[in-house]
């Protein structure tokens, strides 16, 4: 996993609550057996007017010229709800996003994002709205997400604090391989298995 320490970049908004993983990456793109190449299909049904993905929807925020190159996505509550498909963070990261900011996230999506070095940041409703308003009002405005300091800095310089579990923060900052860390517990796992009753062994 790529480490995440601090990132400054152009922000774009999807001003809707409950953005589900079926929207982030529709099912017709889930048949691939690799982790890469999903970015082109990100938000397919909202982003393109046609099924083939040749005609961009000019009204969709990610297609607006002022947001090209955006690397921070700001949205409303319950972002990433629905299906457990990890293709959703794969698509967001492949498109170029490094961080997602929302009032809250669905649990599975939140964990999947961290496992892929894509930082999910929870801010309050009021803070998210302020960020959206500032980004909207200032073309080219950048937002900074600092995982070491646990802060988000808005275009006007307002600083918002956020929280994340210490272990997730540590793994993200260091780009650690979670499986490797758990494999170091092999002896404890074997001891646990040895005491399992027959009915569930």
């Amino acid at each position, binding site marked *: 996993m790529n480490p995440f320490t601090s990132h400054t970049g152009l922000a774009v908004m999807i*001003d*809707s*609550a*409950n953005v*589900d993983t*079926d*929207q982030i990456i*529709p*099912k*017709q793109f*889930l*048949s*691939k*057996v*690799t*982790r890469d190449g999903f970015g082109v299909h990100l938000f397919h*049904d909202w982003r393109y007017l046609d*099924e083939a993905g040749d005609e961009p929807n000019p009204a969709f925020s990610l297609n607006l010229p002022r947001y090209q190159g955006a690397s921070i996505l700001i949205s*409303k*509550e*319950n972002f990433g*709800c*629905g*299906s*457990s*498909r*990890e293709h959703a*963070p794969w698509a967001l990261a492949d498109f170029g996003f490094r961080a997602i900011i929302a009032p*809250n996230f*669905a*649990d*599975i999506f939140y*964990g*999947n994002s961290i*496992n*892929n070095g894509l930082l999910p940041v929870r801010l309050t409703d009021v803070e998210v709205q302020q960020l959206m308003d500032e980004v909207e009002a200032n073309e080219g405005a950048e937002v900074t997400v600092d995982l070491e300091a646990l802060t988000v800095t808005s275009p006007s310089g307002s600083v918002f604090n956020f929280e994340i*579990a*210490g*272990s*997730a923060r540590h793994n993200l900052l260091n780009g650690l391989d*979670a*499986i490797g860390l*758990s*494999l170091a*517990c*092999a002896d*404890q*796992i074997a001891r*646990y*298995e040895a005491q399992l*009753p*027959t*009915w*569930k062994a």
Partner: protein
Amino acid sequence: MAKTLYEKVWDSHVVVENEGEAPLIYVDRHLVHEVTSPQAFSGLKVAGRKLRAPEKTFATMDHNTSTKSATLDALSPMARIQVETLQDNCKEFGVRLYDIHHKNQGIVHVMGPELGITLPGTVIVCGDSHTATHGAFGALAFGIGTSEVEHVMATQTLRQNRAKTMKIEVRGHVGAGITAKDIVLAIIGKIGMDGGTGYVIEFCGEAIEALSMEGRMTVCNMAIEMGAKAGMVAPDGSTAEYLKGREFAPKGDAWEQAIAAWAELKTDEDAVFDASVVLEASDIAPQLTWGTNPGQVVAIDGLVPNPEDESNATVKASIEKALKYVALSAGTCMTDVSINKVFIGSCTNSRIEDLRDAALHAKGRKVAAGVTAIVVPGSGLVKEQAEAEGLDKIFLEAGFEWRLPGCSMCLAMNDDRLEAGDRCASTSNRNFEGRQGRGSRTHLVSPAMAAAAAVAGHFVDIRKAY
């Protein structure tokens, strides 16, 4: 200290718990399917890691498979590669696989319980959000992403933080014609589609205890649709009766041990939940969704809501967006809404009891002109049972199509897909925009409501049939 059911199962699965780290918990059973596993298997291969417990890992193919033909030729080229990749991976890593030719093949959350893989007090995971289904047996079961699938394959454990606990009690008894689907949709309507985020929910109360195992699975299945980590129901006599004699359920002395262990799996009387919700079963009418998320739900005798009545700006915007997508006007009576497609199936409602319920409303009737209705049994075993009971004939004579097992039109990864503008009465679990096909509109209902809508061509209040 008094504990909830969830806390008992959790505590018995902690392998390592260090200060400042998410605890490492043991996974008793890992269910695998073709869509979320290929990248996990390839991750193991790249890192040169072994699959730790192949005997605790069970695979089937369900998301991509054809419901029209049990052949690989019926699949799209990419789907075929994905299915063949699962076959190759299961062979290489020694994982038991129920492929499209096996009688046990089926939707992963139908297969697990009916083979006795799902047991009370176990931790069960799968790369699929509807893994919550297995909580009906008092298991702690939840969906995971592919990185976590790989983690479980390599270690038979997961890093997890303890969830908060919520008790949802459904008191009293439901009226005639009210099913588990109506109960769970009513719950989602009450607490909202993210009302359960961060919680493991225990469903209890007389109305839950009165449900069959199939009904309890329907309720727990949709715990994820209220955002919950998992849903659970305490095991009881119905649970043991359902499991006894199933292929992978314990036998002999092990069965006796299990029964003794399961008797402890209930929330202690003075245990404290972080949140509690109560519903009166007698208040629950047949439910159906009107919008584009499972929380946008209304009783069959209700009306499509008016965004002007909503004071919260974000909620108001969501209602407006949904109304535009589903092409319904505020104030419309749900019984005036016509449909042209019906889907009876999915991990929510494709078990034998669901098909019996639907058949009751199809028997001796005909699917309305202009309506296409398909019935997709959840597994090969469900299909076999339904055919032994003659349900297939009832459906076919009424003009429904009788298909092969799989996830089918719930997520429309195969060719069972709606067209833009189609309006579907669906027994599945998600009515998101485009879920069943781009531009299509989904209304979530019970199997009985779906069959009745197929016959009438519009939604009907099935209570009037009783």
